C-alpha cells in the first residue's frame, strides 16, 4: 500500500476537471521521490566508487590535490601488487574453506532444527538464538582461545570452522524457522496420513519446498562468515589466516599506499557486493525474517 499516494492529490479531481494540476502534482511528487532516492543511494555509491577509483589510479593521482575522481591513466598495478606480493591465494582458499565448511555444517544442523522448532512451536529455542546474537564475539574468543590451546587446535582451520558456526547456525535457524512457518501444512499432513514418519515428511516434503529458504540461509551464513575478522585475528596462525586479516595487515604496513589498499579491499569484498546486488530480494527476505514478526 502506497502511503503517500493514498492521500492528498487524488482528492483534487473532484474540484477541477482539468487533468493538468493532477499531472503536475504527480510530476512534482516524482521529482521529490527521485531526489530522495538519489540522496539515499549516494553515500553507498560514493564510497564504493571511490574505492574503485583509488584502486585503478597510479600513486601520483591518488596523492594529488585536489583529488582526481575519474582515473586519468587507469592501471591494474595495484591489483598486480596485491596478487603477486601477498599470500592472497592461500588466504582466499582459507576463507573459502572456513566459510564453506561452517555454512555446510550450519545447514546440516540448522535446517532440521528450524523445521523442528517451526513444527513443535518451541519458541523458547528462538530466544536462545537471540542470546547468541547478543553476545559479543570476544566473550566466546577468550574461552575458545584457552580451550583450543589446551587441545592443540589453535592456528588450525578446524578451529575457525567450529567457531564460525556461532555466526552461521543462528542465521540458518532464524531464516529456516521463518520459512517453514510460512509453508502450508496440508502437504505434510497428507504425508502423515499416508503413514510417513516426521523424518520422511521432512526429507521428502518440507526439504524440497524449503529450497528457497535454504538458499537464502546459506548465502547469509556464507557472507557473514566470509566477512568475519575477529575470530581469525585471534585464532588463526600465519598459514590459516582469512582474507579480512590480509586486508587488515595490508593496512598496518602500508598506511599510505592508497592504491594497493583499495585493491585489497576490492578483491575481498567484490564477490560479496556482486552477490548482494544480484540476490538483494532474497537477502531482504532473509534479513528481515523474524524481525517483523517476533
Amino acid at each position: 500500500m502506497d502511503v503517500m499516494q493514498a492521500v492528498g492529490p487524488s482528492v483534487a479531481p473532484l474540484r477541477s476537471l482539468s487533468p493538468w494540476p493532477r499531472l503536475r502534482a504527480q510530476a512534482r511528487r516524482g521529482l521529490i521521490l527521485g531526489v530522495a532516492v538519489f540522496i539515499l543511494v549516494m553515500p553507498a555509491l560514493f564510497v564504493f566508487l571511490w574505492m574503485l577509483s583509488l584502486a585503478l589510479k597510479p600513486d601520483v593521482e591518488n596523492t594529488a590535490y585536489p583529488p582526481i575522481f575519474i582515473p586519468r591513466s587507469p592501471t591494474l598495478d595495484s591489483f598486480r601488487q596485491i596478487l603477486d606480493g601477498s599470500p592472497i591465494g592461500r588466504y582466499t582458499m582459507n576463507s573459502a574453506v572456513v566459510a564453506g565448511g561452517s555454512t555446510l555444517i550450519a545447514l546440516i544442523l540448522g535446517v532440521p532444527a528450524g523445521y523442528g522448532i517451526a513444527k513443535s512451536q518451541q519458541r523458547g529455542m528462538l530466544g536462545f538464538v537471540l542470546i547468541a546474537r547478543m553476545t559479543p564475539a570476544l566473550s566466546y574468543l577468550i574461552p575458545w582461545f584457552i580451550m583450543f590451546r589446551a587441545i592443540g587446535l589453535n592456528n588450525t582451520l578446524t578451529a575457525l570452522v567450529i567457531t564460525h558456526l556461532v555466526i552461521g547456525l543462528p542465521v540458518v535457524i532464524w531464516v529456516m524457522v521463518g520459512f517453514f512457518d510460512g509453508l502450508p501444512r496440508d502437504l505434510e499432513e497428507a504425508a502423515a496420513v499416508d503413514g510417513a514418519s516426521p523424518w520422511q515428511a521432512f526429507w521428502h516434503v518440507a526439504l524440497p519446498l524449503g529450497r528457497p529458504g535454504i538458499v537464502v540461509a546459506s548465502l547469509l551464513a556464507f557472507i557473514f562468515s566470509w566477512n568475519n575478522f575477529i575470530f581469525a585475528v585471534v585464532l588463526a596462525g600465519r598459514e590459516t589466516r582469512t582474507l579480512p586479516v590480509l586486508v587488515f595487515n595490508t593496512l598496518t604496513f602500508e598506511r599510505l599506499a592508497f592504491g594497493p589498499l583499495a585493491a585489497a579491499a576490492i578483491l575481498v569484498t567484490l564477490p560479496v557486493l556482486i552477490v548482494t546486488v544480484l540476490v538483494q530480494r532474497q537477502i531482504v527476505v532473509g534479513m528481515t525474517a523474524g524481525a517483523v514478526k517476533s
Partner: protein
Amino acid sequence: MGTRYIWFIAPAVIVTVAIIIFPWMFTIYMSLHDWQVTGARTFIGLDNYVSAFADRRFIAAIWRTGLYAVFSVTLPVILGTAAATVFHHEFPLRGLLRGIFIMPMMATPVAVALVWAMMFHPQLGVLNYLLKSVGLPPSLWVYSPNTVLPALAMVETWQWTPLVMLIVLGGLATLPVEPYESARIDGAQPWQTFVYITLPLVMPVILVAVVLRTIDALKAFDLIFTITQGGPGTASETLNIYLYLKAFSFYQIGQASAIVVIFFVMIVALSLGALALRERTRWT
C-alpha cells in the same frame, strides 16, 4: 506433539551448548581466578570484578561505548526509517537501487573500514576536500580525540542504516489499509498521515531495530579496530577494544573474563529494557 521433533532440534542444541553455553560457564569460572595464559592460576573470588571497577581505563571505556552507542543507534534509526518510507514507494529500478543501498551492510567490514580510513586522511583524504568544496572547515576526523568517536559513529551509521531500513520496510509492508482510507476521506496531509498513523503503527518494528542496533553498537569491533585500534591515545577505546587488549595483548585472562561477564550483563539488561518498552507500545 512436542517430543516428535526432538531429534530434529537435539543436534543443534548439543552443538550450541558445546560452542556457546560451555564457553560462558568457562568464562565465569575463569573470571574468579587469577588466570594468566602461562603459569599458575589461583582462585581469588570476586577480586577481578573489584579491580575492574577500580580501573579508570575500564570506566572510561564504558562511557565511550555508551557515547558511541547513542550516536550509532539514533542516527541509523532516524535515517533508516526515513529511507524505508522512500523505498516503500514504487519507482523504476527500485530493486537495483535497494541493492546498492544495502551494499554497506553486506560488504566486508574490514574492507570498507579501510576505505573510510583513507577518506579520513586530513591532507590526502577526500572527505576534507568535499567539506572544503561546500565551504566548510576541514576536520581531523579520526585523528583527533575530540572528533574520533563521532567520526567512527558516522561510518557505523553509513554501514547499518540499511538494516534499519529493511526492518522498517518489512513493517510498512504489513500495515493495514483502513486507517489510510479514513485519513484520506478526512483530507489529512501526507505528513499528518505519517506522524499520526504510520509512525505509531510501525513503532514496535522500529523498536526491534533499536534493540538490534543497540546490541550491535555495543559490540562494535571491526570498524574501530581497523580504523583507529582505540586511538588516538585511548580516545576511541570502547569496551570491546579494551577487552581485546586485556585478553590478547596483556594476556590477563581472568580480568578480561570478569569484564566479559560485566559487559554481557549490561547488554542483556539494556536489551530487556528496550523489549519491555516495546511491549508497552503495543497497548497504545
